[in-house]
């Protein structure tokens, strides 16, 4: 039997592994974000589209730039920067000046990710780092909301979109008045709650008939998109579940104390970016705990802080800060929540 001696390659077990890879997970997150993006463009028109393109490009280019500078293999193709870009745009006001959006994208990757050593090492969710930066740098623009379903939104841009860098963006109030469909102003459900004590109907919140950021639109749509990822086992449902539990619990306490002054738990969950942020941002794997109990505590903490800041803080939407805080607390949470292993011996026994 003169057979060629086979070529044998030595590696250790296990020899089989399961898909998906990181890149596949990230790609699917992008797919899951697409319906939300499309709906956002339908709601807010061309400006929202340009905003998404700008942050995504800015994040991807920044990632590429740092890879080139440090002589590393390009990591753009793992899609994580693209996700950061998309998520970032979805947390910004649709009329946010594009140049500021580009700055946000740059900071997200440069400060939120590369500074820590790239994917896997970031302590915070990069998109939220970018957003926090522009929140501090451009406090006016980031709280300038424009109406959804504005007339002519597919043919003209929101006046502030094309603001010239380092110049004060054009005011949008007058424009908002002229284009808004009946009864709508630029106010978001959360600012209505905070400043006027008006609680928007949950039906409108579910369907996304409200103003706000793209990621603050239809709760149902966001749930569906998240559901897809959970179904594909690419999203840890425990994180959003814990955040929502934390939110409901905390909001319930206040609601029970005084239902006229404080909004219902349902409103708290559906309004603002909570759905989006809890499903897509709090669940950023890298910056959240891995231990089962840790995940639960992290979620509760984020939910709790969100409600507290919303009700008593200076900001209208606060989930982003709550998540950043949770990210910072992650190592501490993890160190106290290591899983109990199989066969742990009772104390005293050796």
């Amino acid at each position, binding site marked *: 039997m003169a*057979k060629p001696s*086979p070529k044998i390659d030595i590696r250790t077990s296990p020899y089989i*592994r*399961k898909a998906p890879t*990181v890149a596949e997970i990230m790609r699917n997150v992008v797919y899951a974000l697409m319906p939300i993006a499309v709906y956002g463009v339908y709601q807010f028109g061309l400006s929202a589209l340009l905003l998404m393109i700008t942050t995504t490009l800015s994040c991807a280019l920044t990632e590429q730039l740092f890879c080139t500078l440090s002589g590393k293999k390009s990591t753009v193709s793992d899609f994580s920067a693209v996700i950061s870009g998309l998520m970032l745009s979805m947390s910004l006001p649709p009329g946010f000046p594009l140049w500021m959006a580009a700055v946000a994208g740059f900071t997200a990757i440069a400060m939120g990710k590369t500074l820590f050593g790239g994917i896997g090492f970031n302590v915070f969710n990069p998109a939220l780092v970018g957003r926090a930066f522009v929140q501090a740098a451009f406090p006016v623009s980031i709280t300038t909301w424009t109406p959804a379903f504005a007339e002519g939104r597919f043919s003209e841009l929101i006046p502030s979109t094309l603001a010239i860098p380092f110049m004060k963006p054009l005011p949008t109030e007058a424009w908002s008045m002229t284009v808004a469909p009946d009864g709508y102003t630029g106010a978001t459900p959360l600012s209505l709650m905070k400043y006027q004590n008006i609680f928007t109907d949950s039906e409108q919140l579910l369907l996304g008939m409200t103003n706000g950021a793209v990621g603050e639109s239809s709760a149902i749509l966001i749930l569906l998109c998240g559901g897809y990822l959970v179904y594909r086992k690419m999203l840890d449902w425990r994180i959003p579940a814990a955040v929502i539990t934390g939110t409901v619990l905390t909001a319930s306490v206040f609601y029970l104390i005084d239902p006229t002054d404080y909004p219902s738990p349902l409103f708290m969950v559906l309004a603002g970016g909570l759905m989006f942020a809890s499903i897509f941002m709090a669940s950023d*794997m890298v910056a959240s705990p891995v231990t089962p109990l840790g995940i639960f505590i992290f979620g509760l903490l984020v939910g709790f802080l969100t409600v507290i800041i919303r009700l008593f803080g200076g900001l209208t939407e606060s989930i982003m800060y709550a998540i950043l805080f949770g990210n910072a607390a992650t190592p501490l949470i993890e160190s106290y929540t290591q*899983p109990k292993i*199989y*066969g742990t011996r009772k104390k005293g026994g050796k």
Partner: protein
Amino acid sequence: MGLLQLFSKKTFPHGIHPPEYKDETSRKKTIRLAFAPEIVLPLSQHIGAPAIPIVHKGQFVERGELIAEPAENALSVPIHASVSGTVKDIELMPSAKGPKVKSIIITTSPSSPQIPLTGGPQDYLSMDSTQIISAVKETGLVGLGGAGFPSYAKMMVPKERNIHTVVINGCECEPFLTTDHRVMLEKVDAMMTGINIAIKAVNADKAIIGIENNKREVMDVIRDRLPDDNLISVEAVETKYPQGAEKMLVKSLLGVEIPSRGLPSEIGLAIFNVATMAEMGSLLPNRQGLIERIITVTGDELERPGNYIVPIGTPLKYILDFAGFTGAEAELILGGPMMGLPVSSLETPVTKGTGAVLVLDKRATKRDDIQPCIKCSMCLQACPINLNPSELGQLAAKRRYDVMEKDYHLNDCFECGCCSYVCPSNIPLVQYFRIAKALNRERHIQNG
């Protein structure tokens, strides 16, 4: 009952569901392989001290003859000649464990009828525990599930411990492997005898056979043959990897946990594998030594995959030629794809603990680049021991091996591979853990 079973499925937390790849071999009857022209019998095929050869170069030995005695006052078992022939040499030969080990090489006699020697019948029913245990030792039997722990030693229970239940492991959770499946179908009577011997040896009240619920037809066959005294029962457990690990099986069957780095006897259990029981049931009543075993030979690159009865010591090359190995670019594995050992030489012989030879297409086992841990927590949700492989992996990358051992239970990891299997970043976690353990051992030795 059917519905109830569905809800009260016996299982353990975590684990994984890899594809099974068993159909190729599970339905075929076991075939006896011819004798290879040369047989290599390593003196250390078991956990413990190597056996001591009692034959010399040039000596003619009969099939079944004792050729190496167990080392004295140590954990050790004897070795029997698996063919009739002439001792060619006693020298260092390649082994599955990596480094070369001292082995007895026998040139098979082409003219011998190859009838195995036996010591004559003995009635285990009239023997007491001590007698049974020494008779088991004489057979040279070790755990055939892979670890190779001497079976007699498993039966020596410290006096202060009481064994109430013998657990029989009929879970073959590794993909591809079907030897236990075939043994349970083809050698069910010998297995029952073996189980009765084991019950007697450890003075247990009963035995439970745990079988994965994907082997319904096997369960039916066994249920048919259960003795009337109700001493032995059969239970279905969930088909999941690593159900066949002792720790997982007892958790599934009885809801108990073997204490961390302790023995099953601490909680009143003795655990044996079905193939070991079948061998014991056929060897011990005839005072015969362990000279052959069943192995699964399978994988993408074979023309005749199947289960084969092979003399222990048969070189892999001989088996692969017989099974129609096409010689393509392949990865050779002794054991299953989750925990098997890589093979470096085709001269490596089958030993008592070898349950399978797997030939996988290299393209199928190719791994992508390693990426940083994205802390997806999938490994934590897969680890049956409930370790934190993510943290362990990161510590390994920082070479904090001591912390891994002290604070993160490194030594409780039994290298089942679930964490590596699910890791989307392709991190070879198990490999890291093996290295860490080895380095820790070295460090402990240096520090005395």
